[in-house]
């Protein structure tokens, strides 16, 4: 949280707000004094000014500053004798003290409310984080248990096992460990987007992005045929190439792992000109459909995290991966969706806006 411990920080903006509030209050009092002889409204208006300043500025300082300014303005301008300081009027010291106290307390209270609001937002973020952490820990435990189990079996029953059995267990260990690495990479993507730093977008060539993603996918899944098709011209997109690469890898892996009985995966990009120029990426497999009931909630982190009972082991990781995809596409100003194809199979699509100027510049 910023400057929580610092009640005073010099800022031109805050100073301006304080000055403006005093000026407006003075003008208002000036206007009102034309309509009546009574000057009791003046202190009230200045208290209001103090309240506004405390609300809009950071820390106590500007509220207190405005209190003093208000006090002197009221004394100088709006109470008899006009345009002269006079602290000797009977009862004035009392008025002075009361108004100072009221302004200070108002200022303090407002600042406190503001801090409480910040605390509340922080608490909500914290809750979200701990929910995410719980869901992830739960997801990570399963493959870890399987790795520990398989390696223990290998170590303890070394002599009684056939080569095939050993091989099967080793494969299982490798697959689970690779899955864990992919998940950790997803989590790293999240931390890359979180925090104060802005993601490092650059103009990237679409063909390079698609090229290395395809290459990486083939390395990990040599048995699954991947067809790639993109427009022939050179297209620049303004993205964080590591994050969008992560989205493509997640979606391709998702298509490979969850599309049962698939024979081919297609990765294609098309350009769309309706509603601003954008690139539409689509990842299609010809496997089985996703349950219609799940479709609307695929990218919905909260919906998925909440329903513990619903997930099967087949769906593990899919949720982390897809919600990370959705988050990445969102920070790039794009949209992501999934649909079952009438011809069989599932299509994931996401769009990224294309910058017109960048297209023309070399």
């Amino acid at each position, binding site marked *: 949280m910023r400057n929580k411990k610092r009640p005073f920080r010099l800022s031109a903006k805050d100073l301006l707000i304080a000055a403006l509030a005093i000026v407006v209050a003075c003008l208002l009092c000036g206007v009102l004094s034309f309509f009546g002889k009574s000057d009791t409204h003046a202190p009230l208006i200045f208290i209001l000014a103090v309240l506004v300043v405390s609300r809009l500025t950071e820390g106590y300082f500007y509220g207190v500053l405005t209190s003093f300014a208000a006090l002197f303005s009221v004394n100088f301008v709006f109470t008899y004798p006009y345009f002269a300081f006079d602290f000797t009027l009977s009862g004035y010291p009392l008025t002075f003290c009361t108004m100072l106290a009221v302004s200070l307390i108002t200022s303090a209270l407002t600042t406190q409310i503001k801090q409480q609001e910040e605390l509340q937002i922080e608490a909500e973020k914290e809750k979200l984080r701990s929910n995410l952490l719980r869901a992830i820990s739960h997801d990570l435990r399963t493959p870890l248990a399987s790795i520990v189990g398989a390696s223990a079996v290998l170590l303890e029953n070394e002599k009684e096992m056939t080569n095939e059995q050993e091989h099967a267990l080793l494969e299982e260990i490798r697959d689970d460990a690779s899955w864990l690495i992919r998940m950790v990479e997803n989590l790293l993507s999240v931390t890359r987007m979180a925090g104060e730093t802005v993601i490092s977008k650059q103009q990237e060539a679409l063909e390079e992005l698609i090229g290395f993603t395809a290459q990486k996918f083939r390395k990990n899944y040599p048995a699954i045929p991947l067809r*790639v098709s993109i427009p022939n011209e050179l297209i620049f997109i303004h993205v964080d190439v590591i994050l969008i690469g992560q989205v493509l890898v997640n979606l391709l892996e998702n298509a490979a792992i969850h599309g049962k009985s698939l024979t081919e995966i297609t990765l294609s990009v098309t350009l769309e000109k309706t509603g601003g120029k954008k690139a539409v990426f689509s990842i299609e497999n010809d496997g089985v459909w996703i349950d219609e009931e799940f479709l609307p909630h695929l990218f919905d982190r909260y919906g998925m995290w909440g329903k513990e009972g619903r997930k099967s082991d087949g769906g593990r990781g899919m949720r982390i991966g897809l919600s990370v995809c959705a988050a990445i596409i969102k920070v790039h100003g794009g949209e992501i969706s999934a649909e079952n194809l009438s011809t069989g199979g599932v299509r994931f699509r996401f769009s990224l806006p294309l910058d017109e100027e960048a297209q023309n510049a070399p």
Partner: protein
Amino acid sequence: MPHKCRILVVDDENGICRFMTTILESQGYEAVVAHTGAEAYAAVVSRCPDLVLLDLGLPDIDGISIIKSIREWSRIPIVVVSARMHEKDKVTALDAGADDYITKPFGPSELSARIRTALRHAQGNAGDAARAGKYQTGDLTIDYDKHQASISGVNAGLTRNEYRIMVLLSRHAGKVITHDYLLREIWGPHAVGNNQLLRVNMANIRRKIEKKPADPEYIFTEPGVGYRLLEEDLFKRFA
């Protein structure tokens, strides 16, 4: 080879060291292990390894400064072992003088391919291409005497700068070349950071050399870092 190549593995994780030494020994290399930067530096001086596999995240000394201090007096090949997300670290390491990098997690074949490439370049065998006057892999040939790149014997029609890029990549074939290095070498220091200039030229080269630009056979993109040209097909050249 008269002696076994000695490889220094620098990593603070015991598990990773054990896994890498196992791979190296099974490939016929001699493996030496260092767990800290200080140990690594001492081992480079005393054990005279032929190659260093360096993890950047060491407990005592920053990996980049190890590379820099080794580079002050030695040309020994350094291959950096790094995690996928840290593409800025990779670029810094390459700029500091590392020869190549390998991304965690990797398998045995990937590790030994990287080591072979780095050793080959270091032992000057890669200079063979220059001496032979040509670089060849698959259908792609770069003829240094004729200043020409051709696909299946047909001139690819590269422009001057495109050809110079290919020469640079082919002289370091199998190793990654950073964007900024290419820009500086081809267009000069003022062009450094002008990524679009490089991307446009690379796109043109791809259209002249690759059958499918989005699914390349020869020039591979290392996201956020640079490019890597497929290593030379040695059997073909000598056949």
